[in-house]
């Protein structure tokens, strides 16, 4: 069981949860389990079955792009993190 840290912008789709326990042996399986638990997240993380290009997934302090991507193996107790693309400000039109 690994844990995924959900950034603020995506907590609207996890009923406000910030840390979610997920099952799976790889990053891809863990994210699959995450979107099974919270289906509204799927649109934000995946385009078809590919991770969206602006979604950054880290294990600890490492970017999975520089590991084996979605195939990167994870162990129980690993901390995954979705790093949001944020621009700042609070403009409402």
């Amino acid at each position, binding site marked *: 069981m690994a844990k995924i840290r959900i950034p*603020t912008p995506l907590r*609207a789709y996890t009923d406000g949860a910030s840390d979610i326990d997920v099952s799976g042996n790889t990053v891809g399986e863990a994210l699959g389990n995450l979107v099974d638990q919270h289906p509204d997240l799927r649109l934000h993380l995946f385009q078809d079955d590919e991770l969206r290009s*602006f979604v950054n997934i880290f294990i600890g302090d490492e970017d999975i792009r520089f590991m084996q991507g979605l195939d990167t193996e994870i162990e129980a107790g690993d901390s995954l993190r979705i790093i949001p693309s*944020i*621009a*700042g*400000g*609070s403009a409402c*039109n």
Partner: protein
Amino acid sequence: MTSLHQRFADLTNDEVKRYSRHVIMPEVGMEGQRRLKASSVLLIGTGGLGSPLALYLAAAGIGRIGLVDYDVVDFTNLQRQVIHGVSTVGVSKLESAEARMLDLNPDIEVVKYNEPLTSENALRVFGEDWDIVIDGTDNFPTRYLVNDACVKLGIPNVYGSIFRFEGQLSVFYADEGPCYRCMFPEPPPPGLVPSCAEGGVLGILPGTIGTMQATEAIKLLLGIGAPMIGRMMLYDALEMSFQTIKVRKNPKCPVCGIAAGDIQLIDYEQFCGMPAHDHSEFSSVDETEAIDIKTVTVHDVKAALENGDDVVVIDVRDPHEWDISVINGTLKIPKPDIQLAKNGIQGGRRLWEETILKDIPKDKTLYLHCRSGVRSADSIAFLSEVGYDLGRMYNVEGGILAWADEIDPEMPKY
């Protein structure tokens, strides 16, 4: 890392006294303070992040500080933009900030660029001898523009970004490490950028991140410590947690992976699918398809509601805005919900009757309003994409702000 430059300016006796708490530290010393006086830093934005940046960098004795902003101080800015004040509401942010900076430290020079940063002017502005550019903007198009122009000109970009209770800090300096695009190759599509309801920011947060950006700038100028090159700090104010992650240089980066001379500044509003600033003429509606959206006035809305016309008035603002003000008798469906439903229908994942759109009749005239009229126009475009008749949808000009101005002066504006 060594200092960015080897220029030194003489200090007057008054300046030695002013900066004595710096000068007595060996990491700064007379030499470092003389170096700071000979330094130049350009701040993009004089808002939430720009306020602490401008104040602390002025106080620290950076000899030349540039400010880029086109806006005027608004009352709602004062929750976080602490360089401004009630006395400068309605005044140019540049004038307001300059006055405060020179009051704090008259020995510095403030250079003002009273214009939105664009692909047309960025190289001219950035090219006027700046050692460092600090990104304190509030939108994706300008962030990509700042990055690309900095990479092209070889200027370090001290990056800070904020959202609600979270902040990010890094130094993107392509000569020494990765750039913003190595980490964020593409912006999120407009539909996935957090909406107003999910937006907002703790007023103190830009203070926290902005002062950290100022710290990184000073470190780079003095050549001391370990700069945030190749690292990003993630700050969560609610948990008071700081975590540092690695940012690696992407050898295939479309910007810092090519020769500087080949880097072209592009149309960043189109790249991001969103306007870069309030005065932008960019419209996502115009971009997707040049559709002609009809409008009505708030007086038409009032008449329709009073006469019980066969009109449905839809408020597409976000739920927290309904607590501030509301026009009675409206159907309330936030724009992101309409967009989500539209995307679901277009993607074949949902039927119309399975979405919230089932509450919006297809056989009636629809008046859509938001705060000022932008989100309601987008919503009309979305609805037209999933079978609603453009001929029977009307955008309420000026939104609920116009209602407050023209119909109900008691209504609070925000």
